[in-house]
């Protein structure tokens, strides 16, 4: 037995709920133009956050960490060329101030921060600042020194500083043996692609964090693309020497027996031939390649 | 047409959190209350009295059975206009005064604004609430809240009122006042349905009673009928019975007690009281009082409840 009042109430509830969801979808479709102002940081100082979070400090650190990751992800995938990332460092700073041993936040945060333009914020300086903070709280942790060395090596091209940090890392307890060789390799072959390859491979094998692994795979693919381009350049030289003219397309090289098929980059996008020189397709997500490794 | 009738009204509550099981709070209650009666709904605490009243007020809904008030099914707004209800241990809004509360309720009954103030003042006078009617309810004693509760049940000059434990929280003077109020209501033709676990209230007020125990109706009827079957003797107080007549009279009595010099209390088996009077006068005594010796409602109640408990235990 259901009274008319209840039936009416149920009907209202269902119709209104469906309408609300529909409007919600509509409103979501009208994505507000990215505000000229950033989403607010409610608290302006990590110290204040530390005091306010009382006994929920670790949880608060996690909340800030999640905000940092979501923020990074949504900025990176947002349409439009220029990425702002203005809140990335503050969010990471809050997170690591609330939980000073939050190692993933330091390491992964440093990778997020130093990622170059246009995809990333291009702030290796802030990455180093974050890692230095981690080292202040946990001086014995070799990973932070290693990560600093890495930022110096890969993003700042400061091989001497990189070697120094590798050495520091190697001296710390529990440091793996390969760190010692790493310092030597860095000094001897500053800017060397093999050294870079070795670094990224270590990062790939040594990390348990998917994001770090993904980043390592990506950079290893870039290095392989650089190798590929060198090899292709050699083939083009050989073709030019043999045919007396530069190739007009990859087919020339295939017909000449120098290539088996149209060459593709590590992400399976074909390379292009521009004015007799090989290059990544503009469609390739590996762009832009790190520039300085162009020649050996 | 009856004022209140219920037909096999039953209510199960679900008890238990993880595996709720039905618990039968009221079992097949069938009642009929005539217009203009004061009807006592009696039973110990937890017998199902409040459940029955809440069912009638539609605060809870029956598992089975039905009920009518003033001939209409429950929930009819037109009927709600003609009834009043005092909940058990009522509680209202802390920050309103009695006057404001009653004005609010008068508004809900659609009493015109012009009449409201006079109506409110008159019911508050009837329950004996003085100047404190203007202060907030949070400062009231339990007895004062009870009086406000009775006042709000009468604000619409109802044809039927339901009082759930109207005497609770009141001092002896308050109880007497409320008794008088209920008698006044009956005099005006209002049907009063009240629940109580105190039997003296019912003996003094009711023409009809129903007794419930453990969710079941154990007896219903006129107080006099329910009690006449239990009339079991006479009690006579006599003065100046000569010592010589005493053995003869005492032989007829079940018991004989000397109260104080010259006054005796005698108990006799049921029989014609005229004969007893003759016996006393012939023996030379002077009758001070003659009482029918009957079971009190209290004793009746205890016996019926015990019987119900035995029945309840026998059939799980």
């Amino acid at each position: 037995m259901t009274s008319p009042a209840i039936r009416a109430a149920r009907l209202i509830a269902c119709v209104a709920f469906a309408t609300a969801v529909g409007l919600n979808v509509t409103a979501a479709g009208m994505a507000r133009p990215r505000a000229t102002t950033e989403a607010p940081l409610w608290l302006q100082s990590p110290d204040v956050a530390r005091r306010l979070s009382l006994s929920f400090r670790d949880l608060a650190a996690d909340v800030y960490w999640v905000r940092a990751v979501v923020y990074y992800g949504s900025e990176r995938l947002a349409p439009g060329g220029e990425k702002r990332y203005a809140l990335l460092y503050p969010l990471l700073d809050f997170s690591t101030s609330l939980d000073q041993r939050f190692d993933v936040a330091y390491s992964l945060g440093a990778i997020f921060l130093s990622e170059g333009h246009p995809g990333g914020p291009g702030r290796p300086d802030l990455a180093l600042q974050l890692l230095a903070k981690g080292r202040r709280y946990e001086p014995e942790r070799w990973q932070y020194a290693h990560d600093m060395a890495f930022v110096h090596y890969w993003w700042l091209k400061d091989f001497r500083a990189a070697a120094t940090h590798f050495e520091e890392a190697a001296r710390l307890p529990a440091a793996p043996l390969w760190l010692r060789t790493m310092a030597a390799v860095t000094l001897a072959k500053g800017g060397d692609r093999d050294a870079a390859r070795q670094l990224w491979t270590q990062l790939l094998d040594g990390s348990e964090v998917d994001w770090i692994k993904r980043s390592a795979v990506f950079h290893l693919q870039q290095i392989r693309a650089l190798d590929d381009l060198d090899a292709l350049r050699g083939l083009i030289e050989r073709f030019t020497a043999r045919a007396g003219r530069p190739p007009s397309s990859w087919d020339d090289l295939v017909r000449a027996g120098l290539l088996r098929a149209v060459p593709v980059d590590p992400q399976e996008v074909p390379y292009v031939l521009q004015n007799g020189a090989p290059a990544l397709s503009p469609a390739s997500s590996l762009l832009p390649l790190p520039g300085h490794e162009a020649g050996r | 047409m009856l004022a209140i009738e219920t037909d096999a009204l039953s209510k199960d509550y679900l008890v238990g959190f993880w595996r709720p099981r039905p618990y039968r709070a009221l079992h097949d209650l069938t009642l009929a209350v005539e217009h203009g009666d004061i009807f006592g709904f009696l039973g110990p605490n937890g017998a199902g009295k409040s459940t029955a009243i809440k069912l009638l007020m539609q605060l809870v809904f029956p598992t089975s059975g039905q009920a009518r008030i003033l001939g209409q099914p429950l929930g009819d707004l037109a009927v709600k206009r003609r009834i009043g209800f005092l909940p058990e241990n009522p509680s209202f809004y802390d920050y309103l005064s009695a006057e404001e509360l009653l004005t609010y309720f008068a508004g809900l009954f659609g009493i015109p604004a012009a009449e409201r103030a006079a109506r409110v003042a008159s019911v508050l006078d009837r329950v004996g609430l003085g100047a404190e009617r203007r202060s907030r309810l949070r400062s009231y004693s339990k007895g004062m809240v009870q009086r406000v509760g009775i006042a709000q049940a009468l604000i619409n000059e109802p044809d039927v009122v339901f009082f759930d434990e109207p005497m609770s929280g009141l001092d002896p003077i308050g109880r007497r006042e409320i008794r008088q109020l209920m008698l006044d209501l009956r005099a005006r033709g209002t049907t009063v349905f009240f629940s109580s676990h105190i039997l003296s209230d019912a003996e003094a007020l009711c023409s009809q009673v129903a007794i419930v125990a453990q969710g079941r109706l154990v007896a219903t009827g006129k107080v006099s009928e329910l009690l006449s079957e239990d009339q079991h003797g006479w009690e006579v107080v006599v003065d100046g019975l000569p010592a010589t007549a005493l053995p003869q009279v005492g032989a007829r009595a079940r018991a004989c007690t000397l109260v104080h010099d010259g006054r005796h209390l005698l108990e006799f088996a049921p029989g014609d009281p005229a004969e007893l009077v003759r016996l006393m006068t012939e023996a030379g005594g002077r009758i001070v009082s003659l009482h029918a010796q009957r079971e009190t409602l209290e004793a009746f109640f205890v016996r019926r409840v015990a019987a119900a408990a035995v029945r309840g235990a026998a059939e799980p």
Partner: protein
Amino acid sequence: MSPVTVGRVAAAVYKESVRDRVPLSMVFFAGVLIAASIFLSQLSAGQDVKIVKDLGLATMNLIGLLISVFVGTGLVAKEIERRSIYAVLSKPVTRSTYLLGKYCGLLLTLASNLAAMAVALYLVLGYFAIATPLPANSTRPPHVDPWLLLPLALLFVQLMVTTAAALFFSTFSGPLLTVLFTLAFWVAGHFGGDLRDYGRVVDSPIAAGVARALYYLLPNFGGLDVKNEVVHGAALDAAAITAAVAAAVTYAVALLGAAAAVFERRDLK
């Protein structure tokens, strides 16, 4: 359902809550806090008016939420617990009418409390307008900015939904659970934006789908929060705000309908 009866119930709620010291003291506290921002803003290196506005709007947001949750819970859940509801429902009032009256009464209370706090905020801003007027060629929004009423109005819309949720939850749970559910509901409403972006940062399509579904099913208070834009004098998207308001209002209606459907048959033990 008679509008007159709804009005009478609402008026009683309003009268009672205005006298209850808890919401009153919260409003008073908000006033003090807003006034205190005069001193706080001395320390802010030229950002004084921005800080006063931020603090004022944030305080109103918080106090409004607290009143909506705690008083909203008291409306029905506490009234059931204290059994003061018995007498009211024995009057010629249907349960739906009673619920709607309670709801309107609380909205009235919220509106008047927000208005009181807004007056306090504008007084402080007025002080700044006299003490440190903006330079003539400033591109900043004026100190006494009528646009500040927009985030306040949208806050009221948010509170309409939150109050409806408090009412809905209190039709089937006790006061404490209602407070918890309502707060969780409010937090969820504010995580809306994060839920939408969640799909971009996780690999699992199931998790992303669930997040997206939740994003659509829960009210999205993010779209109703324009504090930042207004304080900075940034452009506003009228269509998006209108859609968000429409969604919120229908959401409140849905919650009220559901509350009535549950409450009509509830046993009030």
